[in-house]
């Protein structure tokens, strides 16, 4: 036994798959210890904040300010303000003003501004330009001039006694605060979702729930499949016929359709994560049963089984001690596949809106479902669905790798 486990851990594929899976598992277990927030607390007002560090503006004002004279600061500030459309508009003007296109580089902010101030003339009439466009250029020119002005910004507050606005502070362009001195900031590595919840925390909680669903579904499916397969394969005769009849029935109806029908008929109110897991388990045992049965059939005529019969053992004893150990490795492999397909089935159901209805816990499928309903994929808010897809892919990929790794160990060309 020890030897077999050693061998399994010598297989590169298995070890690779196992490390991925173990990492996921460790993160799922340890992350909540460091970030104890409930996963579904709504942090943000508004949908889909992009990933990043969020710094409190209010607290920045009251933090100590330091003066730093950095060369590029102004240019960077302007660059970040000057939008892509504005740059394009500037370029159009310059071309109209007779500057060769090759000399204009919309990405080079400094050069672009120089060229603009040298060539812009609000009175100049460009043929074919609409009035609206002309006004736009005037506004743009003012805005750019404002950007270049070295004036400080003024902070004022309403005086509670007089009710008048009073200037309490000015902020120079060279003022900086140290981020670590700002009282409030929040890291949102994966941004927020449509409800303004931290996606990372939510994703990790969802992974845990989905893994649980996978395990429960996988174990139920494997137990049913194993029992039926053992009985059908070993006992044979009428028992075999009956079990194979049911199995064939299940094979003819596609499992997923069955799953949809059952989930639908259970009704939204009753659909908890556990219920969904059980339903998935109850509908996916079929191929385990078939596979176990064929393994048992090839085993039951082996001489060690015959010897066990001749030694006066009961059928139960023979199944448990002469058949089961021989297919144990196979069953474990089947279990792993069942778990990963259970996770996928949950995701599939949830995407269709038939997944668990929960208010406390998310699942991977539900996260995709929410992202889809709020059109994250159309709005380009990749952080709302990509990490979920990657997690699902990683889980199933790692489990399949473990499986092939084990397969190579258990079924080499020559068994001895």
């Amino acid at each position, binding site marked *: 036994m020890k030897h077999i486990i050693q061998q399994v851990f010598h297989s590169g594929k298995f070890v690779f798959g196992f490390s991925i899976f173990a990492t996921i598992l460790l993160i799922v277990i340890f992350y909540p210890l460091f970030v104890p927030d409930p996963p579904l607390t709504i942090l943000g007002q508004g949908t889909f904040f992009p990933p990043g560090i969020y710094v409190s503006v209010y607290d920045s004002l009251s933090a100590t300010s330091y003066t730093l004279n950095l060369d590029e600061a102004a240019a960077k500030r302007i660059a970040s303000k000057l939008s892509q459309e504005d740059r394009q508009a500037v370029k159009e003007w310059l071309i109209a003003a007779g500057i060769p296109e090759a000399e204009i580089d919309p990405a080079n902010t400094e050069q672009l501004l120089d060229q603009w101030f040298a060539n812009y003339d609000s009175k100049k009439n460009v043929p074919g330009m609409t009035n609206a466009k002309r006004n736009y250029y005037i506004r743009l020119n003012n805005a750019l001039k404002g950007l270049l002005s070295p004036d400080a910004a003024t902070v004022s507050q309403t005086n509670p006694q007089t009710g008048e606005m009073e200037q309490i502070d000015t902020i120079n362009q060279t003022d900086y605060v140290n981020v670590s001195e700002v009282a409030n900031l929040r890291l949102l590595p994966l941004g927020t979702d449509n409800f303004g919840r931290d996606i990372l925390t939510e994703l990790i909680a969802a992974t845990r729930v989905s893994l649980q669903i996978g395990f429960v579904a996988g174990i139920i499916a494997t137990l049913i499949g194993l029992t039926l397969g053992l009985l059908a394969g070993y006992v044979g005769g009428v028992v075999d016929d009956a079990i194979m009849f049911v199995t064939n029935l299940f094979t003819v109806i596609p499992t997923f359709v069955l799953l949809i029908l059952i989930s639908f008929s259970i009704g939204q109110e009753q659909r908890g994560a556990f219920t969904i897991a059980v339903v998935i388990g109850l509908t996916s045992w079929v191929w385990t049963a078939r596979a176990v049965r064929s393994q048992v059939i090839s085993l039951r005529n082996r001489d060690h089984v015959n010897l066990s019969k001749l030694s006066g053992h009961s059928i139960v004893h023979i199944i448990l001690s002469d058949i089961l150990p021989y297919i144990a490795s196979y069953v474990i492999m089947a279990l792993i596949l069942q778990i990963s397909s259970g996770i996928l089935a949950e995701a599939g159901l949830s995407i269709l809106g038939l997944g668990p209805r929960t208010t406390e816990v998310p699942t991977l499928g539900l996260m995709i479902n929410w992202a889809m309903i709020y059109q994250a994929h159309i709005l380009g808010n990749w952080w709302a669905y990509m990490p979920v897809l990657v997690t699902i892919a990683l889980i199933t990929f790692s489990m399949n790798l473990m499986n092939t790794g084990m397969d190579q160990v258990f079924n080499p*060309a*020559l*068994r001895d």
Partner: protein
Amino acid sequence: MANTMLEVKELSTKYITRFREDVYAVDRVSLAVKEGRSLGIAGESGCGKSTLALSLMGYYFPPLHYTSGEIIINGKNISGMKPDDVRKSILGREIAYIPQAAMNALNPTRKIIHFIEDVIMEHEVYATKKDIYERAKKLFETLGLPAEVLQKYPVELSGGMKQRTVIAISVLLLPKVLIADEPSSALDVTSQKMVIKMLRHLMEAGMISSMIFITHELPLLYNVVDDIMVMYAGQIVETGASREMVFDPIHPYSKGLMGSIIVPEQGLRDVKLTAIPGVPPNLKKPPAGCRFAERCRFVRPECLVTNVSLRQAGDGRAYRCILPEAELREAYAREEHKK
């Protein structure tokens, strides 16, 4: 003088069991097989023949461990090589091994051609399936096996056919030395004859240079190999040319072994076979003296304490006994006379 294909000097190997006990299954075995010659190994079951065969390849994996000695295959000393290197460059190319009961170990869910693909691809990464098929077909035809076998599953083949297929698979890479461990003991006499014919053909056609053949069937061994080596409890007790070994054994154990040969001949049913009472020694704690002493009818007190080494007896014969050859022969003659 033909060159030596396989030379083993004082090779010892042991099993380390789950309880961390050592089982000394091969103890200071030396042998040499020349090009074009075949060596047969016989001996009590459990005396370490299969273990020796495994050890000869220099490919050790737990629980089998190398202790000491040298193995030289075709001029290459492989004693210190890493198992992975041995597997890549020695197994199948220099030396091939057909394990005991190999034909029943073929994975029933794969076709014969798949085993062949595995073997070749392990060594030649760029071989295409089509090439492999052509090569296998050619080999099978030269060995007198129909090419349809390639497309069959092991269960579809009869015992004899399966065994010949296994042999064909093991000589795919044209090894210098072939070790066959009881290749025919599960076969009927006719299939056995076909297997032997195939092995002979391999030797004669020069596809393999030397062969080591392990079997309990002494009449078969007598007909197949040039030299016979008899083992007892992990050691060689006697070696020599096969004819002399069968008709004129020196060591008391070989004498007993050759005396138990059964051939279907008149009067056999009335003959009392020479059974040797007693049990071979425990290989975990081998006796200090002669390992056969406990069961030997000529045992002397000094046998139990003296570590006997192989004695030369002319003509490449050697035996492991404290008694001189002449004295043993005399004793045998007396026994014969009494009957």
